[in-house]
């Protein structure tokens, strides 16, 4: 479901959609459309939401399989308990709501009902990080920090529609509970058809020699955009996309980092407790100490406002990215 209109419109501005996608093709609701297709092949798949069906893109699944879809209402703890119960009788339960409500509201239920129980629950958490203007109540800026603290939990932060669609299929065969930072609405298509998501494997998206960028989620898309701009000024940056946060690809990150004198780590998350922390821990443990710039959010609650305003204010926008590359060549 490719939307070329979004390309000519230049930017998508709906709440929870991504900005800075000028020139990119977008795809509408890649999560829900892929889940509906997969569920046709896998009768054990069920879909659930906690009153966020429309806003998490699961409606294509509901339309295709109304008998296998359950809206539990605004009750995130119940969402995860019911999903765990369904898994215990043989189902694969895909759950959706916003990241903030899964993580802050229902943490014990992710940990105990799901992860500890090795429940086949696949959580597609909408609006991770700073991707909406509703303020801190809706901005899951510490979700990676919280989730990585839970044992036996897989954490995935896809880059774009291409990767998200592959992840929807892959998690059906990853045992146990998986937390995915989902992308919704008109999701940009950044990666080519040759891209292959592999659990626990970081992927080099762009080669370069001047500086190494390690990034996750849609910040990997922005990293490539920034690297392209910097390349126009003669600075050649490489981009390593860490699509799986847990299990963390320590060896892949170390191999990449060892090639550069300077590193940039970028994430749609606070710079504490997320990707930057993981990278720094890995480097330090390996005795690989290098100058490293963190692009991400401060330890704060954030304002309401337009996406452009917030990203500029909190210095995670494209110009900040380009500046970081040029200053750290």
């Amino acid at each position, binding site marked *: 479901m490719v939307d070329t209109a979004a390309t000519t419109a230049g930017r998508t501005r709906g709440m929870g959609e991504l900005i800075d996608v000028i020139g990119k093709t977008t795809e509408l609701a890649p999560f829900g459309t892929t889940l509906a297709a997969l569920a046709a092949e896998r009768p054990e798949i069920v879909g659930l939401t906690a009153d966020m069906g429309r806003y998490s893109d699961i409606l294509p699944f509901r339309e295709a399989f109304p*008998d296998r879809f359950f809206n539990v209402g605004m*009750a995130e703890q119940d969402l995860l*308990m019911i999903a765990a119960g*369904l898994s*215990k*009788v043989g189902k694969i339960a895909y759950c959706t709501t916003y990241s903030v409500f899964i993580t802050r509201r229902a943490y014990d239920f992710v940990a105990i009902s799901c992860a500890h*129980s090795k429940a086949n629950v696949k959580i597609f958490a909408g609006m991770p990080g700073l991707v909406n203007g509703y303020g801190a109540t809706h901005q899951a800026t510490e979700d990676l920090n919280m989730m990585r603290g839970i044992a036996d939990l897989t954490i995935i932060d896809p880059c774009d529609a291409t990767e998200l669609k592959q992840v929807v299929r892959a998690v059906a065969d990853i045992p146990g509970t998986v937390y995915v930072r989902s992308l919704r609405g008109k999701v940009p298509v950044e990666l080519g058809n040759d891209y292959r998501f592999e659990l626990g494997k970081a992927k080099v998206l762009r080669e370069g020699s001047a500086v190494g960028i390690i990034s996750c989620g849609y910040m990997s898309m922005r990293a490539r955009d920034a690297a392209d701009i910097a390349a126009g000024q003669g600075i050649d940056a490489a981009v390593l996309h860490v699509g799986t946060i847990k299990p963390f690809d320590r060896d892949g990150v170390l191999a990449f980092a060892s090639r550069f004198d300077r590193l940039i780590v970028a994430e749609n998350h606070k710079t504490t407790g997320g990707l930057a922390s993981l990278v720094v821990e890995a480097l330090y443990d390996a005795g690989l100490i290098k100058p490293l710039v963190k692009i991400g959010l401060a330890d704060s609650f954030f304002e309401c406002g337009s996406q452009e305003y917030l990203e500029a204010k909190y210095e995670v926008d494209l110009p900040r990215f380009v500046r970081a590359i040029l200053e750290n060549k």
Partner: protein
Amino acid sequence: MTSRNHPPEHPDIDALKSRALNLRRLMLDMASGKGEGYIAQGLGIADCLAALYFHELRYDPATPKWQDRDRFILSTGHYAIAMYAVLAEAGYLSVRELASYGLNGSHLPMSTFDDTPGVEMVGGSLGHGLGQSVGMAIGLRLDGSPARVFNELSDGELQEGSTWEAAMGAATFKLDSLVAIIDCNGIQADGPVTVKIDPVADKFVAFGWEAVEIDGNDMQAIVTALANARQPNGKPKAIVLRTTPGKGVPTLERRERAHFVRVANDEWDALKAELETHHG
């Protein structure tokens, strides 16, 4: 596949009482071996567990994962001592291994884990059981399974908001096959139940359930309530048990601080003697 218990019209109440007595003996043995335990709650729920495992539930201890087994979900993980007693009595565990209750490295920990045969959930964090039971009941119905889901939870657990999220869900999804068994023994960690939770049955009725309140230590009342809960009417069923903590051992019944019991080694023998005398 052999299944236990096709509920007869005329249950053998005396046989079930005898089973309950055996469960209490096993629990006292476990608690005395460990020197401590959540024995008061266990003794209180023994009659209901006997009625479930030797009258109502369909299961096969030789095939713990039999897909069409009735599920018994013990939400209160600290009632593990009672769970292990009934699992041993039912044939999932050997009586001999009960001696490892609560010891380091045992697969019979003081709070239930789901890797013990016959235990369906990790039960330590209260407020998880009813919702998981809702999910199981939905999934079993999707598969056309005749299996039913029984969830034990406690009065203290009613203070957890997640219990009421699950209660709403169960009614919304019209889970006929779900039976909540609410053990109202009047105690929680800090002493008597601290937050006003009564009327419990009326609350469940208001949430769209069918609910009944009974003496949870009256075997005839328990089997009658379980029989009534088999009637399909599009509603989940709640059986509110009023139980006496320490039931069967008068010293423990009178004890004010009953949430967690620790007594001297020689006192356990006295408690065991009380159980036999009281019963006799």
